[in-house]
């Protein structure tokens, strides 16, 4: 058990510290970094999905006035490490997916760079590609582990026997499509390589990233540089949703380009279209669910068999089946993951990888089971609440799913719901309601360090953390202030720079837990050394420590989402007049910022429910709806009453803040709640996302 901080600044509804600068437009983003006389880099992308580059004709591009360099495989520098095929930019002629970088142009203006990029002629020896995912492929394989390090398959008891013998069973397949993260700010880097006498040179990257230190680590490996030779700076990020959690090819390209023009800064910003092949995405998933139940609803068995894709050149295995491992009690259980390695862009993290797609199939299946049993779907979930974590038998540090379900049902007005589908008609709309559960693990990264300095009457902490719009600039001072016992107004926390102590990635909703713990340790050191009356210049540092409680307890946030859906009787148009989420995510460090995380994630979940779908044309291997006019995210008019609530949760085991992480749980379960409500409205069971009007259209 850790001692939880006395909350004084923690829990306060403080406005974003960086809000004013962002509203006024003075917050500087990567591509706007003021540098002298920059060059602009534009990339050329492969137009075949598999094969080889046989010739790159750069004559016309090079001849253009203002072009400084055209980089191709033939002349780009050889990288020190090409182990990661996604990042081995311009290192070989092989094409692993359509959209791969095959050349780049550097010019004095962005316009000239763009024109020159269009003039580069690339010839290919095209090979037949394969970009079609299906569950009946004969080349599906089992990955060694699924993201980040879970075993791919688990089994307990005898699932087959449970299915054969249980009085009520369900065996259904659910699918979620390919999704793209699409942060507002495209992936962008300003890069500067400065050759220096004696020390081998220095690279500065102003990069839009979820972690400056992880970027530095990757870049040093790839270029064979020492950490002191690379500085990564990122004060602000216009959203990442996982797509900036690991550096993608664009970052390597920017560094390569900068090193080709020593002393000259280079800007490289991807276009929206380019982001659809170079910045990661969520794999489509095929989820076969089996549920075996007693007549009273208690599960005798639960299984999920997942089929999904990765790219042929690099494996990423989404942990879609993992949430099923600890969600509901059942003596017989199975989870499996099978991958198809296709000639497609490299998948990666997207908000709540694993949990987000992986709670769609199970939570719709639970709804179907409730119907088969004639049970209230809220009650069915409560009856399957486990005493201990089903997979390991360890207790939960705290688990308040039932409280969330009850509180949500109360707020939503669930009691007395008529469970029959397709029987409520109001003004030409079918009306229905649905529920689903949310879950997200509480994670802490092993490494992060902070320093605290006393400077001119203020405490200044430093840590290379990232604020991708989430609120780290604001929340970290709240934590440091309470650790110090100082007013939050007297505390600064500086982030977003590798000149600050090393920090972990802003991913897995682990930022506040990990960086906050490092700050608490640094403050402890500081107070141990200097007591309560420090002198100017006093400084101490501390690092996050392993939490022994993690061995004893399973730590997770839980939630419940309730949706009301209307479906137009003539057109099938789907609207969501109400979407309520109730979460149990430990102590809420800043209610205003947490609410925007919950609401933002629920909105993204709404997009997953109703709109989002990357259309990968199997004939070409590229996503054809690659802009925001065609790849739809929700508009205000899609939803009326969107609410996020939380229950006070006191968890003494997670960390000194008592917090569990709020960035991702809000997207988990939303789509299932909406799909379940759409079924309740229309009687059409929706097992494939998104719920577009043609799927519920009368007379279709």
């Amino acid at each position: 058990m850790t001692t939880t901080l006395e909350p004084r600044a923690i829990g306060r509804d403080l406005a974003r510290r960086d809000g004013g600068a962002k509203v006024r437009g003075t917050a500087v983003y990567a591509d706007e970094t003021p540098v002298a006389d920059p060059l602009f880099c534009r990339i050329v992308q492969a137009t075949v999905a598999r094969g080889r580059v046989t010739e790159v004709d750069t004559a016309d591009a090079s001849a253009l006035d203002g072009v400084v360099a055209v980089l191709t495989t033939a002349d780009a520098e050889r990288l020190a490490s090409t182990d990661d095929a996604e990042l081995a930019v311009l290192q070989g002629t092989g094409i692993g997916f359509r959209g791969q970088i095959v050349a780049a142009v550097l010019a004095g203006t962005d316009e000239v760079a763009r024109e020159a990029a269009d003039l580069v002629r690339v010839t290919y020896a095209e090979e037949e590609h394969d970009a079609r995912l299906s569950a009946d492929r004969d080349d599906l394989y089992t990955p060694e582990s699924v993201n980040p390090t879970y075993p791919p398959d688990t089994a307990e008891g005898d699932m087959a026997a449970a299915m054969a013998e249980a009085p009520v069973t369900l065996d259904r397949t659910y699918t979620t499509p390919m999704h793209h993260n699409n942060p507002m700010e495209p992936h962008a880097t300003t890069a500067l390589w400065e050759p220096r006498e004696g020390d081998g040179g220095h690279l500065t990257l102003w990069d839009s990233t979820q972690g400056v230190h992880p970027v530095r680590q990757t870049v040093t490996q790839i270029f064979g540089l020492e950490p002191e030779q690379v500085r990564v700076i990122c004060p602000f990020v216009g959203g990442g949703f996982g797509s900036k959690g690991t550096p993608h090819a664009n970052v390597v390209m920017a560094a390569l380009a900068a090193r080709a023009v020593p002393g000259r800064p280079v800007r490289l910003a991807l276009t929206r279209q380019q982001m659809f092949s170079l910045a990661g995405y969520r794999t489509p998933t095929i989820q076969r669910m089996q549920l075996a139940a007693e007549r009273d609803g208690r599960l005798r068995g639960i299984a999920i068999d997942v089929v999904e894709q990765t790219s042929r050149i690099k494996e990423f295995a989404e942990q879609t089946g993992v949430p099923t491992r600890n969600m509901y009690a059942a003596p017989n259980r199975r989870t499996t993951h099978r991958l198809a390695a296709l000639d497609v862009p490299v998948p990666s993290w997207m908000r709540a990888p694993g949990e987000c797609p992986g709670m769609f199939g199970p939570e719709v299946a639970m709804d179907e089971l409730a119907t088969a049993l004639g049970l209230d779907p809220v009650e069915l979930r409560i009856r399957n609440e486990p005493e201990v974590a089903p997979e390991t038998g360890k207790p939960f540090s705290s688990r308040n799913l039932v409280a969330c379900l009850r509180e949500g049902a109360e707020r939503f007005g669930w009691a007395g719901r008529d469970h029959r589908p397709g029987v409520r008609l109001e003004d030409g709309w079918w009306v229905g309601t649905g529920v689903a559960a949310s879950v997200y693990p509480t994670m802490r990264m092993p490494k992060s360090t902070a320093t605290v300095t006393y400077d001119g009457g203020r405490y200044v902490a430093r840590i290379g953390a990232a604020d991708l719009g989430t609120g780290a600039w604001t929340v970290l001072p709240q934590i440091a202030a309470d650790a110090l016992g100082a007013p939050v107004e007297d505390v600064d926390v500086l982030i977003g720079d590798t000149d600050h102590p090393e920090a972990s990635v802003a991913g897995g909703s682990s930022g506040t837990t990990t960086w906050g713990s490092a700050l608490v340790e640094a403050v402890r050191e500081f107070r141990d050394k200097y007591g309560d009356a420090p002198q100017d210049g006093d400084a101490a540092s501390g690092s996050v420590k392993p939490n022994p409680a993690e061995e004893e307890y399973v730590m997770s946030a839980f939630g419940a989402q309730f949706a009301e859906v209307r479906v137009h009787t003539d057109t099938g148009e789907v609207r969501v007049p109400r979407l309520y989420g109730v979460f149990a995510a430990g102590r809420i460090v800043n209610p205003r910022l947490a609410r925007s995380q919950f609401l933002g994630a629920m909105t993204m979940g709404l997009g997953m429910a109703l709109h989002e779908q990357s259309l990968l044309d199997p004939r070409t291997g590229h996503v054809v709806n690659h802009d925001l006019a065609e790849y739809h995210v929700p508009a205000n008019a899609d939803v009326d009453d969107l609410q996020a609530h939380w229950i006070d949760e006191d968890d003494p085991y997670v960390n000194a803040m008592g917090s569990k992480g709020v960035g991702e749980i809000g997207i988990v379960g939303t789509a299932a709640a909406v799909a379940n409500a759409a079924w309740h409205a229309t009687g059409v069971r929706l097992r494939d996302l998104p719920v577009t009007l043609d799927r519920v259209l009368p007379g279709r």
Partner: protein
Amino acid sequence: MRPFAYATPPDAREAVLAVAERPDATFLAGGTNLVDHLRLGVAAPGLLVDVTALTSAEIDDLSDGGLRIGAAVRNSDLAADRRVRARYPVLAEALLAGASGQLRNMATTGGNPLQRTRCVYFQDVTTPCNKRAPGSGCAALGGATRNHAVLGASEHCIATHPSDMAVALAALDARVQVLGPDGEREIPFTELHTLPGDTPERDTVLEHGELITAIDVPDLPIATRSRYRKVRDRASYAFALVSVAACLDVAGGEIRDARIALGGVAHKPWRAHRAEEALRGAPATDESYRAAAAAELADARPQEGFDGGNAFKIPLLTGTLVSTLRALAGEETRA
């Protein structure tokens, strides 16, 4: 994207000559469609002739009781005009259903009907497209066809016209005023856009250098009871899957007259003459509306596609038409 010259000639006549004499010249109005195409490489003109200051930005009363809408009138101003809202609600509603507030503030009356298809392959220069590169093939056939045509398509192109405003104008019997190198001419709005046939590179009957100076809407009493109903994949800020512009004259439960145009179904705003014919004299009932839809859609041919295709557009159009006409007839009952 390649460099281009930008010109602002003193008047419309000069602008027409400037464009007519250069095959690679083009007019620029609000730029909300053309500038995207410059960026995407879909269009690569050598000269942009800005006409926003050269055509009228006024809406004038015509002697026959109609309105003349200058080509430079912004979509947001047109939608807000009192006369338009009272006499042609279908037009105001169509405009407001399109794009976003910011885009409507830029988009013009002349540019809107000339916006080009949103076919994803047309907008992607790495794929074949007969409209963008004649003779290269049509990548949409068997591709992503959710937004494509079910009426009047050809084997060379199955694209749809994306404008909402144009659907209303087709229903309203609008007329297009055109200035060309050889003088002025008037084109019935329903004849402005073409079907793809074997010249899918053409969207309209306008010749190179012909400038739209204004669009006239005639005095049309039936239009006071009119509606625009747009159905799309999200509640706002999306192009139509299908849309219906309808004017209905109902008395004593009988339909006296109707004007109907359909959007999202063809290479042009689709004036539904067959449906209008079927409605005239029929009782104002769902059965009549459904029969009208069936008459209009008798020749509809859905497209297959890896995205599931667009067969759903046929029941969707039927439902949308029925729902729109029912609502319009309901207005009569209330009146």
